[in-house]
């Protein structure tokens, strides 16, 4: 036991464990505790009062509105793209995969700037938009577009490895037994990928609710109109209203924690159907 050549001595093991746990506590857990402590530092009433404020309410509703639009769109188009990429071979597939990854690597601020260059007063579509009296920047459509850009890869990237791992046998069997395309999809494909899909949608929603940089550039920060919850936090924080800022932050952290808990639950219950993909969500 003691002389197992593939195991480090106990003191090395425990030092490494202590270092890793210490680093994670210091870097990751402490900020979370800070949010909770600062949010409830002045009691539950102050926390509630900060969230009851009309500006906070409208910021929360705009955030939920954005998520409600972005999630279904990403789920549908993510599944479509994953179907094409996981089930077929075609020229340029590698290139397409890299293009899908682009929003992961592009700075959110750059994404926001791109939208300004398209829809801003000097943008490509400026005249057309003005002629038709459509407002995209500094309005809800801009915020939705920015969020769509940022969250584009999440569902596709989650589904491709899962579908590749599952293979096409069941779908081919369904087709050979005469199932229509839709029957095959709804009775075979969808049940097979549903947990992976839910998982991707969860990651996507966490990102969509918390997106800051891209939305900040296109929103115009109009209070009560185009402020999302993260932008609301920034305003409160810059006005030194720390308690209110952290109260709003605690709400977003709560949503993030729910995401993690559900993800944890899916992993432990349905680990087999997302196992292959679960480390590759980055």
């Amino acid at each position: 036991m003691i002389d197992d050549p593939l195991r480090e001595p106990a003191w090395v093991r425990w030092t490494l464990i202590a270092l890793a746990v210490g680093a994670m506590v210091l870097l990751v857990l402490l900020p979370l505790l800070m949010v909770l402590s600062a949010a409830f530092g002045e009691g539950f009433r102050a926390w509630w009062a900060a969230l009851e404020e009309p500006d906070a309410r409208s910021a929360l509703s705009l955030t939920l509105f954005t998520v409600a639009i972005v999630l279904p769109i990403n789920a549908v188009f993510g599944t479509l793209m994953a179907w094409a990429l996981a089930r077929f071979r075609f020229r340029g597939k590698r290139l397409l995969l890299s293009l899908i990854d682009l929003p992961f690597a592009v700075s959110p601020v750059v994404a926001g700037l791109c939208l300004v260059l398209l829809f801003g007063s000097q943008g490509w579509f400026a005249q057309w938009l003005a002629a038709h009296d459509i407002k995209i920047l500094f309005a809800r459509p801009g915020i939705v577009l920015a969020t769509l850009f940022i969250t584009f890869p999440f569902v596709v990237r989650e589904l491709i490895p899962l579908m590749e791992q599952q293979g096409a046998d069941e779908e081919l069997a369904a087709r050979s037994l005469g199932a229509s395309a839709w029957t095959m999809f709804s009775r075979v494909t969808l049940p097979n990928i549903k947990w992976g899909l839910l998982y991707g949608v969860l990651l996507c929603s966490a990102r969509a609710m918390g997106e800051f940089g891209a939305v900040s550039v296109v929103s115009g920060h109009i209070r009560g109109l185009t402020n999302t919850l993260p932008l609301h936090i920034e305003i409160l924080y810059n006005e030194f209203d720390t308690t209110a800022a952290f109260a709003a932050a605690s709400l977003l952290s709560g949503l993030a924690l729910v995401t993690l808990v559900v993800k944890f639950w899916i992993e432990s219950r349905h680990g087999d159907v997302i196992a292959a993909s679960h480390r590759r969500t980055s």
Partner: protein
Amino acid sequence: MTVAVATAIRSPRGRNPLPGFGLSLGLGLSWLSLVVLLPLLALSVRAVGLGVDGWWRALGDPRVRAALELSFGTAFIAASCASIVGALVAWVLVRYRFPGRRLLDALVDLPFALPTAVAGIALTAIYSANGWIGRWLEPYGLKVAYTSTGIVLALIFIGLPFAVRTVQPMLETLGREQEEAAASLGASRFTALRRVIFPELLPGLLTGFSLAFARGLGEYGSVIFIAGNLPYKTEIAPLLITIRLEEYDYNAAIALAALLLAGSFLSLLAINAIPLLFAHERRRGGRDDR
């Protein structure tokens, strides 16, 4: 039957009996072009349109150069730190069993899920002069919040999940035979780590580094709170983009954004090239003669 169909799907062209290729690829591609590619194209066209003159003027601004240096520098340092800490955490998670291991595993994803602005104000509160940790560093003259150290710290936070989650699966699938062979040949644990395990993990480490670097380069939300945002000192490139944009100085914003975009492209390119590079080396048996 299944065998016949299964060979059909592997055939290089046509005869794939699954439906919906044209529809799914067509719709998917159109959507990708509309939401992601068209905006990026707009930036690229405008960046080229700046011409030599515009670029010269934009990059001649010392404030722009300082911001770029700061962004690339802090992203590099933070990605290196995140890779080291990430490798340690991944190692401990895969190789050791201890109480709270699964909780630690779940904690790794927190920076993914936690909104960047929330992380930003929390880190600032912790490391400011009267914060939980800042208070203890203050007497020693160590300042984290409102300095470039704070920027690096925020970027480590952002990059950590990438570093852990790229190395972790590689460690999990790493066979122990080679380690056993090394041990039976008399190698110490440290030698085995250095000459057997580390080379195997290197692609994962590099991928994690590139991801953390790309994210760190463009990170905005978590950094602007802790950075202090002093021009020439602690002003990151993404922040300067928003400032120039508010001043309607589009050309400077476009030049900065184009350079950040180029940085992201190169990181993605590296991420895609790393597996190919190492596969090539492996085929040649390049690792054996080390």
